[in-house]
C-alpha cells in the first residue's frame, strides 16, 4: 500500500510560517527587544519572554550543519531513498531540519558548511521549505 508523504498541520502559532512558505518566502520570528531571530515559531521570545516579536522574511541562505543519508525510506519516501535529512544553519542564526534537493545523496557531494539556499516543495496543500546548494557555489 502506498501512502502519501506526511503533511504538516499548522497551528495558529505556526500559520504565518506555512503561509510564508506558500508564498515562497522563508519567514521566521525575531524578537524586537533582544534582536534575536528564533525558530520554531512561538508567540513570545524563548530568550527574554517578550511578546514583542515580528515575522520576518529571511534571506533563505544557510549552511549545511550536519546530516544523515537515510537508506530506509519513511512511508511515502520510497522513490526518494536514499535521501538527505539535514540540519541547516540559517544565515540569521537559527537552525532547522530540512531535506537537501538538487544534489546527489553521496557524502563526497555533501561537505559540511557548504552554502545552501531555500527552495519550496509542494506537500499536500502546503509548501515545505527545503534547501539546495547555493547557486554559484562550487559543489
Amino acid at each position, binding site marked *: 500500500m502506498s501512502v502519501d508523504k506526511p503533511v*504538516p498541520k*499548522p497551528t495558529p502559532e505556526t500559520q504565518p510560517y506555512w503561509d510564508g512558505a506558500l508564498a515562497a518566502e522563508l519567514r521566521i520570528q525575531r524578537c524586537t527587544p533582544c534582536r534575536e531571530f528564533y525558530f520554531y515559531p512561538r508567540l513570545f521570545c524563548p530568550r527574554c519572554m517578550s511578546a514583542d516579536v515580528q515575522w520576518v522574511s529571511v534571506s533563505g541562505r544557510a549552511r549545511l550543519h550536519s546530516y544523515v*543519508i537515510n537508506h530506509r525510506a519513511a512511508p511515502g519516501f520510497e522513490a*526518494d531513498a536514499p535521501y538527505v535529512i539535514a540540519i541547516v544553519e540559517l544565515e540569521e542564526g537559527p537552525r532547522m531540519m530540512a531535506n537537501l534537493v538538487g544534489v546527489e545523496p553521496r557524502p563526497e557531494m555533501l561537505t*559540511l558548511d557548504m552554502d545552501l539556499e531555500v527552495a519550496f516543495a509542494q506537500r499536500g496543500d502546503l509548501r515545505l521549505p527545503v534547501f539546495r546548494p547555493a547557486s554559484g557555489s562550487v559543489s
Partner: protein
Amino acid sequence: MSVRGKVAIIGAAETDSLGIIPDRSALQLHAEAARNAFSDCGISKSDVDGVAAAGQSPIAVADYLGITPRYIDGTAIGGCSFMVHVRHASAAIAAGLCDVVLITHGESGRSRVGAAPRAPDGASLQGQFEVPYGIWGPPTLFPIGVLRYMKKFGLTHEQLASVAVAQRKWASRNPRAYKRALITLEDVLASPMIAYPMHLLECCLVTDGGGALILTSAERAAAMDLPRPPVYVLGTGESAESTMISMMEDFTSSRAFRMSAARAFAEAGIAHSEVDHLMIYDAFAHLPIYGLEDLGFVGRGEAGAFISEGNTEPGGKLPLNTNGGGLSYTHTGMYGMFAIQESVRQLRGDAAAQVPGVNVSVAHGVGGMFMSAGTLVLGTADVART
C-alpha cells in the same frame, strides 16, 4: 537535602526471557518483571505502596498487580524514565511520602503485542518541523549530529565502529545477550548502511522484554532479611533539552547529559576516578562517545580514541556497558531499565561478565533523541556509609 545513602534498591529483576517474546503483551512484561523483582528480594506485593512506570500507565501496572498505591509516578520521558523514576522515588521515600516503590518497564518493542502506536500528530512540533522531512525512527534522528562531531574532533568511522566491537566482547560473555558472536571493525563497516554514517551494527537491537526495581529506605532495608545485598543510591540527576533533536544547542554534546550527570556526581560526592563501572545508554554507537565526554570521564573529542584503544572493553580501565548494551544485549525501545539492572548486578557481584571489586557504578540514560537524560550514581554499603 541530599538522598545520598538514604535509599536502597533491594529488588531488581528482568523478565524470564529477553529478545523475541510474541506471547506476552507489553503490560504483562511489566507485571512479569515486577513479580520477578518481588521474588528477588523476598517481599510481598502488599509491602509496595508506590508504583512508577513508563510506556504503560503506572495505574495500569498497579491495577494489573493488585496494588493500591499512595505514590504514583508516570514520568514518561523516553528511555531514561527509569533513572528518573529512581530519582523521584528516592526523594519521595526520603520525604516519607511512601515506603516501598516498585518501578517497572515492559515493552513489546519487536513483537508489538499490546504496544502503543507510534504516529506523531501532524500538528505537533515534530509533526510540523521534522516528520515532513522523511524521518523514520531513531536511526534518522539520533545520529544527525555525528558528522558535525566528526568534523569538529576528527572522529573516524573506524573509531565509531569500535564501540560496537567493544560491546560485543562484553556480550559474548553474557548468555542472555541477544547478539553474542564476536565482530570485527570490518564486520561493522561492511554491515548495511542504515542512515549514513550509521551502519546496521552501529544501531541498537529491537527486542521485547522488561525489568523492575524495588526501592526502600536504607533504614528499612537494614531491618529486612534480604537475600541479596542492597544497592544504595548515592546521587541522581535529570535534565532535558528539546523534543526535537533539530533544536539541539550543540550537535556534538548533550546539554541534558551534562546537566544531569553534574548534579548526580555532585550529590554523590565522588570523583570520576572512583567509578568502577559505567553504563551509558547506547541506542547508537555514538552515544557512549558523547556520554563519556558529557559525563566528564574524558575530555572533549577524546572518547573515540579512548574506546578504540580498548579502555572500555573487558580488562580495560573503565568497564562500560558490560551487559553488551543496547547494541548487543537487548533494546526494547526504552532501554534505560536494563542499564540500571546491570549496574545493580555488578554492585551485587553477580553479573554474567562480572568486573572485580565494583563499589561505585554509574548508570546514565537518554530519552528520545538527546531529548532528556537521567543519571544514577549507585554504590555498595561500604561506599554508602562513607
